[in-house]
């Protein structure tokens, strides 16, 4: 029945192995930069979303709704192709000469994921009794200082499990960068397929790598949570 000949050796050494490894390196770069910046921006947007100053709150709300409710693929195309019409020629020329494919993919992933992270952090903050903020304020903390020293440290601890989800999503969503020619892991797996016609082997390898990558991210955040954030619970 099965006329397909499996040949695992082609992806464990040689040219195709190097392609897959270079793809993995790019996937790791996109994921790392994306995770760091989406967390920072997410934190910022969450704080803005709960601000007492209305225009700031509205801006954060609009940001959230816009980036949460449009497909990531469309956003990647927007940053890559759509930004051309909005930017001056000088900026376009500079971007086109400086690996804009990678930048556009990271920007899209970061902003998209930051919207989800902001909502997760906000729900963490809402779970902290509001009397704490009031107490902090009456003790002389400014709003930002109260957030920074009293509320967010607690909220982020509560938010760790949903944050892991967002980080995992970001790492896996990075495969969409291939649509604008970023040679990450999925792109390279496809590349191996079209040169060698060994699609099963290439994509099985890619699947395993994503699986291992996800497990590592989960384990790292879990360790951080247990060892550093909640040592008394361990």
């Amino acid at each position, binding site marked *: *029945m*099965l*006329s*397909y000949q499996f040949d695992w050796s082609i992806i464990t050494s040689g040219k195709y192995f190097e392609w897959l490894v270079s793809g993995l390196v790019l996937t790791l770069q996109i994921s790392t930069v994306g995770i760091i910046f989406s967390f920072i921006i997410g934190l910022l947007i969450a704080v803005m979303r709960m601000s007492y100053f209305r225009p700031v709150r509205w801006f954060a709300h609009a940001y959230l709704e816009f980036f949460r409710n449009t497909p990531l693929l469309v956003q990647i195309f927007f940053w*890559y*192709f759509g930004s*051309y019409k909005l930017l001056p020629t000088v900026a*376009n*020329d500079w971007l*086109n000469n400086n690996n*804009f*494919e990678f930048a556009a993919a990271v920007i899209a992933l970061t902003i998209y994921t930051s919207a989800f992270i902001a909502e997760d952090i906000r729900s963490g903050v809402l779970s902290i009794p509001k009397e704490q903020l009031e107490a902090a304020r009456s003790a002389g903390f400014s709003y930002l200082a109260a957030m920074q020293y009293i509320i967010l440290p607690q909220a982020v601890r509560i938010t760790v499990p949903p944050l892991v989800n967002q980080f995992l999503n970001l790492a896996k969503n990075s495969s969409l960068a*291939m*649509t*604008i*020619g970023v040679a990450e892991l999925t*792109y390279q797996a*496809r*590349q191996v*397929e*079209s*040169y060698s*016609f060994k*699609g*099963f082997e290439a994509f*099985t390898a890619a*699947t*395993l790598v994503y*699986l291992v990558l996800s*497990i590592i991210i989960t384990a790292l955040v879990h360790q951080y949570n247990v060892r550093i954030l909640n040592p008394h619970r361990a």
Partner: protein
Amino acid sequence: MKKMATMLAAVAMFGLAGKAMAAAPADTLAEVKKKGVLVAGVKDSLPPFGYIDEKSRQIVGYDIDFVNAIARKLGVKVELKPVTSASRMPQLQEGHIDIIAATMTKNPERAKQIDFSHTYFFTGQKFIARKGTVKKVSDLEGKKIGTAKGSTSEQNVRRAIVTANVISFDDYPQAFLALQQGKVQAITTDEAILAGILAKAPNKSQFEIPAVQISDEPYGLGMRKGDKNFVDFVNRTLLEMEKSGETKKIFNKWFGPSTQFHLKRNFALTAD
């Protein structure tokens, strides 16, 4: 340990799914006659080879006319399935389609996996670039060049211009958009396809196809490996069409003087 077991289970499932898919018939000719329908993998956004006609909303084109002629000879109906350069060979091998008629270049690596018909179209790989920017191949060294994933164009250009930064998009219209926006300095594929893209472009006067060729591209219809009856039948039909002048008529219909391409048929369909 528990995680390890879960992981293994996931991998096992993946393997099973792969096995369940392979159910391609061994004798396509008999199978197609029995089903009464020939399923062909074609391009649907690549004028004039295969694209959706604005009026009829049907896929039409040079490739499609060949599929229709073969089906007519068989006395069966035609079902057209859009494929991409990357998906067409797996689709054929897994039995989702019976024949590939999708601007497919015959090359030795592919011929190890599938069988090709006689060459039914002949072209060469060239470039579209901004007017005056490319005069010879070396003008493209170190430049960004756009093409489509999984195509022979991608492999040829990497070989011909080693220093080029090749960026592969999902399809040629996207690659051309990147060219218009200056994200790549040229796009590359077979001349006939480039002519089709350029003819449809809104600002075509700014672009040209320079007289720079990096490879010969003979197109063949793709069929499953070792499917001898079907391959022989298709080849016989093609030769009959050449004799009756039908192949020439199809060429002129899509590329001849009355079209926007004004190409001359510089090849003949022969047993090769």
